[in-house]
């Protein structure tokens, strides 16, 4: 059974090996130079007020090659679940049913369940190996640039670092198998799998993730030097936000409260903050308004805790889908 699985899977396996090897080799070759720059720019050892150093480092490090590698590495991990779902998962049962060969193979001396278990384990392991390889190299390579940029807590970046890509890839693969089994036709199953995986990749980061760890809620007095955005409307309404207290945090909500405790939107003083006054005058005037920043965020030191919890959730989903597929193949597919 393992031989047959390998014989049917070997072309896809080689494609994946070549793909993973190319990505890993490119990152391994350019990583040391990136880390040299990381250290020589002083950014690696910087502990406080690193904004300027970070900007300098980013400007030097993001040449065309590194920018491409950053996008390709991150993109590869974000696309991997969809790709394994479409090309490895969905056709696994659907193609057999479509060509009638399930009637051939299930009438050998091997039960349907064992046939499926061997296939799930073999191709599932291949999925995990590919995800581990690419994610390990990408996670290592992107540390300096993530630190200088929006940070690895940023939702799309978080999904492409650490252990969660393994979880997404596993869910993508098993979801593909289950959808193929239920839809019974390869091409429609591939399309449905693409949609399902995209849905998981949107719902988990933007709906579920924030509930996996307890966010930090903080209140801070308004500090004009930390203004992130300042907008003044013609009707004197004002929108002001202040940067989060911790660098690289994933900010869930960030509002400015007025003296009454409600969200502050002015009205602003047309003299200080209008066309006549400069930005500094307006900021000084705002400082006198008794404003408070109310912010909820997940700090970057929760990165690994959140990674493992999300990975655990995805692993449970993958196992439940596998159990369902073993039940379904015995009852429903013929």
């Amino acid at each position, binding site marked *: *059974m393992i*031989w*047959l699985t390998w*014989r*049917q899977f070997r072309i896809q396996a080689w494609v994946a090996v070549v793909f993973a090897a190319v990505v890993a080799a490119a990152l391994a070759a350019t990583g040391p130079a990136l880390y040299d720059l990381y250290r020589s720019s002083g950014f690696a050892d910087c502990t406080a007020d690193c904004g300027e150093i970070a900007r300098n480092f980013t400007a030097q490090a993001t040449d065309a090659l590194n920018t491409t590698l950053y996008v390709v590495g991150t993109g590869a991990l974000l696309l991997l679940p969809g790709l394994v779902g479409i090309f490895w998962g969905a056709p696994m049962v659907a193609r057999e049913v479509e*060509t*009638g*060969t399930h*009637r*051939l*193979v*299930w*009438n*050998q*001396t*091997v*039960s*349907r369940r*064992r046939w499926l278990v061997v296939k799930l384990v073999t191709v599932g392991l291949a999925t995990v190996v590919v995800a581990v390889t690419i994610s390990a190299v990408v996670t290592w390579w992107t540390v300096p640039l993530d630190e200088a940029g929006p940070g690895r807590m940023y939702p799309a970046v978080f999904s492409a670092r650490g252990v969660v890509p393994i979880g997404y890839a596993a869910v993508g693969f098993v979801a593909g198998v289950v959808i193929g089994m239920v839809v019974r036709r390869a091409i429609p199953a591939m399309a449905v799998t693409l949609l399902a995986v995209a849905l998981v990749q949107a719902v988990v980061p933007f709906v579920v993730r924030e509930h996996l760890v307890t966010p930090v809620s903080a209140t801070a007095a308004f500090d004009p030097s930390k203004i992130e955005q300042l907008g003044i409307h013609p009707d004197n309404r004002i929108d002001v936000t202040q940067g989060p207290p911790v660098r690289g945090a994933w900010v869930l909500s960030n509002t400015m409260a007025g003296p009454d405790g409600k969200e502050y939107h002015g009205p602003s003083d047309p003299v200080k903050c209008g066309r006549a006054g400069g930005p500094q005058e307006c900021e000084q005037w705002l400082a006198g308004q008794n404003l408070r920043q109310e912010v909820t965020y997940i700090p970057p030191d929760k990165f690994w805790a959140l990674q493992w919890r999300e990975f655990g959730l995805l692993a449970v989903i993958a196992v439940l889908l596998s159990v369902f597929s073993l039940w379904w193949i015995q*009852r429903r597919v*013929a």
Partner: protein
Amino acid sequence: MSSVITTTGLTKRYGRRTALSDCTLHVPAGHVVGLVGPNGAGKSTLLQLTCGLLTPTAGTIEVLGETPHTGSPRIGFVAQDTPVYGNLTIAEHLRFGAHLNPGWDQALAEGRIAELGLDPAQRAGKLSGGQRAQLALTLAIAKRPELLLLDEPVAALDPLARREFLQGLMAYAAEHGTSVVMSSHLVADLERVCDHLIVLVNSRVRVDGDVEELLGTHHRLTGPRRDPSTLGPGRHVVQASHTDVQSTLVVRSTAPVDDPTWASDRLDLEDLVLAYMTEAGAHGRDRVLEKR
């Protein structure tokens, strides 16, 4: 005589559609059994229930003394359209057969492939319909099953390939004493090779029995027009057709019909099966003859 297949009230429904209805059968061991009926009669359903690919909606089925399940070493199944893996070579098919079947007879498999003049390095996707059917049959018999099921194995073959396939099958069955159940929608395919027959029309078994016995007990009677019900006890009218002056009846009767007003003829197997199919059609629920 022991049975290889015993069914009681076996029924299979797909949603509202009934594919097989209240089927009660005993298929004796050591025979080559023909399962005949028009397309859509339920032949594939019955065979897939027998090999365990399908589970019954109602009723019971026992095959070789146990509830059928796929993955049994005792049943060989050649599915409709004789599926094989198009991108695997013949040798790779034999290899996976050897991997997946503990009772695999590699010598038998290789011998058959050589006898057929097939190149083991050839991809199965490039084989002709007849060669593909032979490969599927080779896979099914090299696992050395006690019961071999074939679902319309020759439907897509030309007459020569049909004959070669059936000869190969017969030679194997005779040599190893394997029970065979083979379906077809053409009686002519089964006539030469089967010694037991099951006629399935419109999801119901119409008649089943030993071929010699069926031929011996069915008669075509032609005579002046009369009501078939006046024929007397022990005579079952299978089919009746009338003109203004004449009646033609197909009758099942153990005793010979010696009424001098009737001209009695023997039927050949095709006529017999057709009589049952026509009768099923005349009773309205489907249009068997138009399908043919």
